[in-house]
């Protein structure tokens, strides 16, 4: 008995000695846990974010979404179809092996051919990848493809030898990259621990250990930051902002993300399925009606009262750091009088009835925003019935264009307007694969031509011009009704030195603890 007690005491003493946190450990309280550490498995922010700490891509972004070199020191395109990437020498994977052109070719191929790859689209425009020498890779595209460097950010580089040795499925939990951090352990649902890669080619990270803890409950996440159990939390609940702002040990940071929330309006059909029109025609085909809807929604009030101030009014269909944004476009204010006049001119003095389809589990406060839109539109005579449903049902329905008015968001990723113009603004065309997400089936040949030109033109200045023109055309046609851009909010201890990134990734290499 005595010896049993002794052992117990020893165990207790040992655990107490072992438990104090190691110096320089940064603890990140995350709203969402990564799904898999295979960088091609699933494209979403929480998963990509952790993977960019473990892997590098050939190209990378700075805080403001500007391209900077990654594993490629530089790149050039001698002709419209060819790209040469000059690889960095002396870079090593976490297992000590050398990074060479072999790994780049292997990674791009696996990204496009692995059956469970969720990133196939990133390399679909590539025709061929060749090794020129161990540190030079030539990529040939199927057609001129201006945003190839942006696309290469999405293809994190894996070690060919490691993947071939351990197999595809093992990569979900056993990653080997060249990144600033190595995986130490991952206890799903509890914590994921990374340790610094001292031999990192950008230099040794300043924080030795990073602990990512999934704290999915909003109140718990905030409490953990206030009680100093974590240094950083993401996706800060808007109702806790006041409390966090008042705490002088903490700091709240926010930046607009790349997602714009908007209305999709059915413009293709003479008879829209969910419209109750007094004239029997589809009122949404009239640009005056679409403009009236734009003017009739009080976006400022929605941001203030429903979004708790976390949002910014959208001037166009994407936020300002997207390449192709036109800063000359301004947002007309909320104007009920003008909206009513436009409806009258269009022949709907008493408005019409319509169903607004929305999600109730996809975007922040989606259902409440849809209700507010309905309330605003009722003031100009449009009787809106809100149908807020789970995303699993909403998107398949929207894909079939079985909507007359839909509320949803779109994020351009990479941050280039072509990622809006082709999938949303272009005429729906299954063969071309364009207009895939054009739920309202908007169609303007001029916009189609501009979108196609912007995707193949290789001159950045010219592209900006083309896409700005398209941005203006979309607003003139009121092809979509842009409402507001979502803003990403983080909160952190003042001990943590960090500048928030536009892409929302938490890149620990950038962080330091004071």
């Amino acid at each position: 008995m005595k010896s049993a007690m002794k052992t117990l005491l020893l165990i207790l003493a040992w655990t107490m000695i072992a438990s104090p946190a190691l110096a320089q450990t940064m603890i990140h309280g995350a709203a969402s846990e990564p799904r898999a550490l295979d960088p091609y498995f699933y494209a979403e922010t929480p998963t990509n974010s952790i993977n960019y700490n473990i892997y590098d891509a050939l190209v990378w972004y700075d805080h403001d979404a500007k391209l900077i070199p990654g594993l490629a020191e530089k790149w050039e395109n001698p002709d419209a179809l060819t790209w040469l990437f000059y690889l960095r020498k002396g870079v090593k994977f976490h297992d000590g092996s050398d990074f060479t052109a072999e790994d780049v070719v292997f990674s791009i191929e696996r990204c496009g051919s692995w059956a469970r790859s969720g990133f196939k689209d990133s390399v679909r425009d590539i025709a061929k990848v060749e090794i020129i020498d161990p540190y030079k890779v030539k990529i040939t595209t199927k057609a001129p493809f201006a945003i190839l460097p942006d696309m290469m950010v999405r293809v994190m580089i894996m070690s060919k030898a490691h993947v071939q040795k351990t197999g595809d499925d093992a990569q979900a939990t056993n990653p080997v990259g060249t990144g600033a951090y190595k995986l130490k352990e991952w206890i799903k649902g509890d914590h994921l621990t990374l340790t610094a890669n001292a031999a990192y080619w950008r230099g040794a990270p300043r924080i030795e250990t990073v602990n990512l803890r999934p704290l999915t409950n909003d109140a718990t996440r905030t409490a953990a930051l206030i009680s100093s159990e974590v240094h950083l939390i993401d996706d800060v609940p808007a109702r806790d902002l006041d409390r966090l702002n008042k705490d002088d040990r903490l700091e709240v940071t926010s930046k607009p993300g790349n997602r714009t929330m908007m209305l999709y309006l059915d413009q293709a059909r003479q008879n829209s399925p969910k419209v109750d029109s007094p004239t029997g025609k589809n009122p949404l085909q009239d640009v005056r009606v679409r403009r009236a809807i734009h003017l009739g929604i009080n976006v400022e009030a929605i941001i203030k009262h429903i979004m708790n101030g976390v949002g910014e009014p959208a001037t166009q269909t994407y936020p300002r750091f997207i390449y192709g944004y036109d800063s000359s476009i301004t947002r007309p204010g909320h104007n009920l009088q003008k909206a009513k006049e436009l409806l009258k001119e269009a022949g709907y003095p008493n408005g019409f009835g319509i169903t607004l389809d929305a999600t109730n589990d996809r975007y922040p406060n989606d259902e409440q925003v849809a209700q507010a839109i309905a309330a605003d539109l009722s003031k100009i005579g449009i009787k809106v019935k809100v149908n807020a449903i789970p995303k699993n049902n909403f998107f398949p329905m929207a894909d079939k264009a079985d909507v007359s008015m839909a509320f949803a968001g779109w994020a351009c990723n990479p941050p280039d307007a072509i990622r809006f113009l082709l999938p949303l603004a272009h005429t729906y065309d299954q063969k071309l694969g364009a207009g895939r997400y054009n739920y309202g089936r908007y169609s303007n040949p001029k916009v189609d031509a501009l979108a196609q030109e912007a995707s193949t033109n290789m001159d950045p200045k010219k592209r900006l011009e083309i896409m700005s023109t398209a941005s203006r055309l979309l607003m003139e046609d009121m092809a979509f009704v842009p409402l507001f851009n979502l803003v990403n909010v983080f909160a952190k201890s003042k001990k943590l030195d960090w500048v928030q990134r536009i892409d929302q990734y938490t890149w620990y290499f950038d962080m330091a603890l004071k």
Partner: protein
Amino acid sequence: MFAFILRRIYQSVLVLFCVSLVVFAILYLSGDPIQMLLPADASQEQIDEMRRHLGLDEPFWAQYLSFLRNALQGDMGRSFTFNQPAVKLILERAPATLELAVSAMILAILLGIPAGLFAAVKPKSWLTQIIMSGSLFGISLPVFWMGIMLIMVFSVFLGWLPSSGRGQTASFGGIQLGFLTWDGCKHLLMPAFTLAIHQVAMIVRLVRAGMMEVMLQDYIKFLRAKGLSERRVVLVHALKNIMIPVVTIIGLQTGYTIAFAIVTESIFAWPGMGKLVIDAIHSLDRPVILAYLLVVALMFVFINFMVDLTYSFLDPRIRLK
């Protein structure tokens, strides 16, 4: 005994089969998992390729039969969302949930039975008033509110206990257990208490009601007349006679705490199965949902079996047939 176990197994296999069919049908009808597996800007080509790869383009019966064929060979498939074997995901998380549920039930029994006995034997005491009104609160307070309040008081204001997570664990026979370390115990305290509070209240009321009834019966009078001490009358003779309903409820509630630990798990960021399964349901991750049901159903079968064994121990007239 052996035949009894065999029949139990046979019954549970039948139940599992029916459950899997119903769940499969519900999942099939409730939307398209492809939406959850690919980025929001995926091209039609990519969507079609993925659907074909996962066999989601096949008709319902073909999908169900191929699931059944694999399941009978012990393969529940890989999680759509994590690309890891579904059973492995569940079993990795099961110890955390079991540890939480079992600690909560032990806490509930240790607090509930003595409190219920006391309230029955000394109905006029001031302590009884507190116990009974406390149990009323315990039954009516929502779990998430309790949890958040505990975090606010003990983590944010007092800073005594960690707000969330499982803390340090120690390996015991290959299973990670938190209560073996001091840090783990500190992490376990608040979630276990939150989960236990409802069960304590339930057990208190059940024990008190049963006890008050039994204490009026003739054999109690007889025992007293024989001159047995009050302690022996209450703790040995009366208690054993009220235990059958109490054990039944404890058994049922153990199953309930395992299956419904989700709210507590989510508040305290406890890495148990509940969170995993709720996410799986949201993302229509069929392999994980089905694997979870299998594991939980087996657990229920086991708990019921234990309850039956306890019956025959408490009341020798009951035989396992």
